[in-house]
């Protein structure tokens, strides 16, 4: 239920939403997506992956084999990357938003500078709404709480909705059930 609500709200603001039962199928989907979108080891086509809690050594080894995908997040690399990959810890069903403790700068760099942000989200992280989020995340433990709802947008020129101003122009959300789904 909550997933369905999330999906329709997030798609309503132009996010792309996918869901997989298992982590390996989710990663395969992501790899295919990257290839299709032209991942390569040249500027403006590279991918940059920030620390993702649920990617283990094996997963990383698989990803490391992809030419153009790097784990070493710097400002410079992020500003040149086409893809930024990060794990977002929570999703808010009623607004279609993702949320993360973004205190680590790397998390913000990969989700704000590249053109496409790929967000990996545990399905179990879906919460009904923002009150549920704020009751779980206290500022004491989280210096930078970030919420992301769809890609970057503006309506500043003649009020015409245009996607991709300063942040990503695409937000690809990949849910993985394996870490406890059931929503």
């Amino acid at each position, binding site marked *: 239920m909550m997933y369905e609500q999330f999906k329709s*709200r997030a798609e309503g*603001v132009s996010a792309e939403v996918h869901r997989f039962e298992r982590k390996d199928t989710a990663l395969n989907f992501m790899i295919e997506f990257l290839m299709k979108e032209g991942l390569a080891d040249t500027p403006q086509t590279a991918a940059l992956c920030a620390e993702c809690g649920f990617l283990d050594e094996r997963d990383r080894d698989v990803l490391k084999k992809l030419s153009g995908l790097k784990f070493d997040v*710097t*400002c410079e690399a992020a*500003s040149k990357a086409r893809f930024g990959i990060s794990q977002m810890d929570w999703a808010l069903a*009623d*607004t*279609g*938003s993702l949320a993360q403790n*973004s*205190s*680590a*700068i790397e998390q*913000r*760099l990969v989700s*704000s*500078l590249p053109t496409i942000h790929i967000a990996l989200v545990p399905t179990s992280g879906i919460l009904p*709404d*923002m*009150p549920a989020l*704020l*009751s779980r995340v*206290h*500022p*004491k433990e*989280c*210096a*930078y*709480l*970030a*919420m*992301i*709802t*769809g*890609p*970057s*947008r*503006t*309506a*500043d*020129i*003649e*009020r*015409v909705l*245009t996607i*991709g*101003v*300063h*942040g*990503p122009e695409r937000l690809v959300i990949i849910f993985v059930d394996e870490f406890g789904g059931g929503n």
Partner: protein
Amino acid sequence: MGTEFKESIHKAINNANLTGALAKFSEAYKVNRAKAYEGIDFEELRGRIADLKSYAASHLDELSDQFQQNAEACGATVFRATDPEKVREYILKVAQDNNVKTVVKSKSMATEEIHLNQYLEKAGIQVGETDLGEWIIQLAGQTPSHMVLPAIHMTKEDVAELFSKEVNERLTTDIPRLVKIAREKLRPKFLAADMGISGGNIAVAETGSIVLMTNEGNARLVTSLPKIHIALVGIEKLIEKYADVTTILKALPRSATAQLLTSYVSIITGPTPNPDGTIKNLHIILMDNRRSEMAADPKFKQALQCIRCASCLNVCPIFRLVGGHVFGKVYTGGIGTILTAWFDELKKSEDIQGLCIQCGACKDVCPGKIDIPDLIMEIRRRLVQEQGVPLLQKAIYAVVNNRKLFHGMLRAASIAGKPFTTGTFIRHLPLFLADLTDGRSLPAIAAEPFRDRFAKIKQPKGKEKVVFYAGCLIDFAYPEMGEAVVKVLNKAGIEVLFPEEQTCCGAPARYSGAYEVAETNAIDNIKALLSVDATYVISACPTCTVALAHEFISTFESVGQTGWLPKARELAAKTIDFSVLVKKLVDEGRLTLKEGQKLGKVTYHDSCHLKRTLKVSEQPRELLQRAGYEVTEMFECDTCCGMGGSYSLKLPEISAPILQRKLRNIKETGAPVVAMDCPGCVMQIRGGMDQDGAAIKVRHSVELLAEQLDI
């Protein structure tokens, strides 16, 4: 009003791009806003916002202390300042101490308020706005015309022109391409900047956090990339509890841009690492600039409940005609008028407060539950108090209160043919009967006012008695409406009383800020209307009803007249609007309308005071339906007709296009009759239809109903 001000209005109204863009936007906004609030109890939500913001406004010092303590415990530096000059100096000092050459900014009204950019630039620091709209106006060397959409007054052609210069390339008006250009041009600025400056949508005392919302993602970059971040926050942004952030975030994006949530929300609590591994140098400035004074003012404290959503601009029928620049350089629209009067100075609001037509549309949508029109009235009152009522006006009010003389003069002028075009005295009559304006003919003044006709009406003696309050318009211009009221009530077995001592309700004086005159009117009317024993005091003019039911009390409160307050309350409790009473009588079976009538289509115009102050909109429609009319709704049925009492005299250039819009909406329904419950609206709309030549009858509901009484 100054000529310069009049000229700026003239210029704005004749700017077809501007008015076209604003009209389209305001229409879309209403629909989208309603959609965004679907399933949400707006009244409940804004009640909570008003409570928590009002609590904060009464505890500004405590919350500032608490905020400072908690933010500093997390490693931020907090600077508190009352004076804008101190704020500017502080920011410059931080910049100079850290050898800052370039600054990137995300949108912040507080920095506009203190004209920070100019100041820093004078000191040789480059300041770059990064919000697309702000960047556009920065390039154009202009000021924002809207709190949320700063460049709403500019066209894509304007933007293409500006950007072409910036990139030295001839650009077309392809909007996605223009946006791309902005991304490409601003990206290196973000990466190179030494300092980021932001505002803050919310500041949480309990945790020392600031909340930033953007759609473009610029605030994330401004707060992440440069090594120094300064957040300038007005202390009205303080709230006590962290959990309350959700309450404000539920309303702010919905009201501001009809979104469920802005694309990016950041809750920042203390410094975080920079890209190079060092820790952010985070400064939070809590700025007062007269906000504490405002909090100490019993009337204006309310204004601190504002969450800066700008919906009061978006629904304002005046704003959509003139845009933001007419209002000034920083804060615009209704709330902008109030903020300018305080943050700048009262005098600065002298002209712009006159733009408010008191239609109440903003009050209905304000998520901070601020009575914006009432605060603007208070500004008007204080201005008049400072400057005094002009002698001419005083003389006029004296005449208004002498009913016989007043009628005689009006009548004489009316008969004189082209009535009120000459002679200042008559031109300033507050009865709004003066000055023929374009697009509206005036009513003939009745040979015999209602007060004289009333004596001739033969009424059956009824057990129940009701006092009729006529008001100026029904008494002198539309006595037939008063006769219809009597006819309808008599039919229900009610005897109507008309105490002759009743006088003008004082609205014209009050709306001009002349509260002492309004006070005298109120006392005279209370004496007259309570002099006889009756169940109700009924009025068929919503402006008068509002005066009797609400404004006598608030006028007394404003001028410190406590002696008459109990009587004013007694009168208020007895006062009832015509349609409410008649609906009640019909429901109780005391009044029956003819059965099975097929009277065809009618469209209904909601008068501002009736719908928004008295909250009456269903009763007149139901009555018309019962009578046999088919009610066809017009577009924007509850948008002001542009009358606004003497507004149509003071600002005819604004009143006229509002009326034209109303006429168009009425005509588009195809109904041969338009009904309404306010004689003022009848005067405005009937006059407009007359000039327009359309064969549409403009009637007060009471006239239509009186024709359909069961015999």
